[in-house]
């Protein structure tokens, strides 16, 4: 409790959750309604809606963590506590890991709510064998969200509006991550871009487990691993960017 209490307090104070309606609206209504918008729009065509159903859940995961971690860094700066934190002996990695944890739990809750609502409304059958793959893909997608959040936080510390980068990346994820539509279906050149972003491998893993059954579980888990590796790469990029910004700030 002694370890987590300040982070819990920070989590509540640095975000808009002092108003419970803000939490419900942002973490639950927004991702559910976005999922219904896409799944509803694609359910009118003849094809399967598995991709948008699970893709929007992964999108909710990545978006929640990305916004959360961006605000973790950005609001710390805006409310004047970041400089004290930088000057203390606390390790940057501990600050980021402990600070990200509530957002990871939040994102998981949010994506499970999205998935449950969409599956119920559109009466989609999910085989039991796919559950572990779905959960593993959601967990792997958290890493990508953290990495993108760190990067956005670092950019925000350089004077860019806190909400700009997460919103730009959010649009990029909708278009190219494969959450709603395979990237090469939008434009051929977007295919390679999509593979560098979170969600792409995760959603493919879920699709393999759903459409090819238990015989292809190994392939599905390989894709989950790929999703986790992409996430780790983004954490490395975001962490390095933040480290540079922190070092400059400490020096100047």
């Amino acid at each position: 409790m002694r370890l987590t209490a300040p982070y819990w307090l920070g989590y509540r104070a640095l975000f808009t959750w002092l108003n419970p309606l803000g939490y419900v609206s942002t973490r639950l209504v927004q991702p559910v309604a976005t999922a219904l918008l896409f799944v509803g729009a694609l359910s009118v065509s003849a094809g399967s809606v598995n991709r948008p159903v699970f893709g929007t859940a992964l999108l909710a995961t990545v978006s929640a963590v990305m916004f959360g971690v961006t605000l973790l860094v950005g609001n710390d700066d805006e409310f004047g506590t970041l400089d004290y934190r930088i000057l203390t002996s606390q390790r940057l990695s501990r600050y980021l890991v402990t600070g990200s944890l509530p957002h990871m739990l939040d994102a998981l809750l949010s994506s499970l709510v999205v998935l449950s609502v969409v599956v119920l409304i559109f009466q989609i059958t999910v085989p039991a064998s796919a559950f572990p793959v779905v959960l593993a893909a959601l967990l792997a997608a958290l890493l990508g969200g953290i990495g993108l959040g760190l990067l956005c936080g670092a950019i925000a510390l350089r004077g860019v509006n806190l909400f700009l980068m997460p919103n730009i990346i959010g649009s990029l994820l909708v278009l190219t991550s494969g959450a709603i539509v395979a990237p090469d279906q939008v434009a051929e050149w977007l295919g390679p871009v999509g593979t560098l972003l979170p969600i792409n491998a995760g959603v493919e893993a879920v699709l393999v487990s759903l459409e090819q059954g238990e015989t292809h579980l190994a392939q599905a888990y390989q894709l989950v691993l790929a999703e986790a590796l992409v996430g780790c790469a983004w954490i490395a990029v975001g962490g390095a960017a933040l480290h540079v910004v922190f070092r400059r700030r400490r020096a100047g």
Partner: protein
Amino acid sequence: MRRALWAGFKLQLKLEAFGPFAILSALVTPVVYALVIIAARGEILTFNVLLGAGVIGLLSNGTMHAIFMVLDEKYDGTFSTLAATPAALAAPIAGRAIGAVLQGAVVFPVTVVVLVVLTRQVPDNMGVYSALQVLLAFVGVMSITLIITGVMSRYEYSAGMLNGMVPLILVVSGTFASQQRLPDLLVYLGWLSPLTGPLDTPEDGQVDLRLLLLSATLGGAWLAVSAWYLARLPEALRKRPRGYEA
């Protein structure tokens, strides 16, 4: 009152007309959504998709700027300063909200051109009443933005309170696909939305004029409600002064 409204309107355009958020919410987001829908359905560019994308741009831009604008004005102490004067408290923020929606309306034709160029298609199912649909969508977005501005202005810690409203309104209004596929509760909610009439129309463009007229009445009623709601802001803040906080 009119001068304060006009001043708010000019301020909004001066501050945000070409801001990155305006470009992102009014142009990039609707284009991305439309491209994704067209690609996933494997279909041509239809008027319904164009209008849906346009409304996403209008509503995202209007509400996003309304939220930021109210927060800025609260941080700057505009509300408490105006409350101590005989000036109309709601007029400058109403002016800024109207400016934000008009800014989105100016970008709407640009969105159309960008989508036509990117897809290399011209929507062929534009009906006789398409212009009326666009106008009603604009009126609907205006009323929703003004109501959101009014709600944001009344409550403290309100930054995230209305984040979920935009996608929810879009879903229940039948953006990109008829809301009839949704559960009954959401369908009933959709009947209250001023955007359902213009958005939830048959793919072939054969719109029922009676439904559009009904929608125009609903849109007008919502616009009147939004004006009334904003006009009552000083009284609401007097009763609940915590609303002055951001």
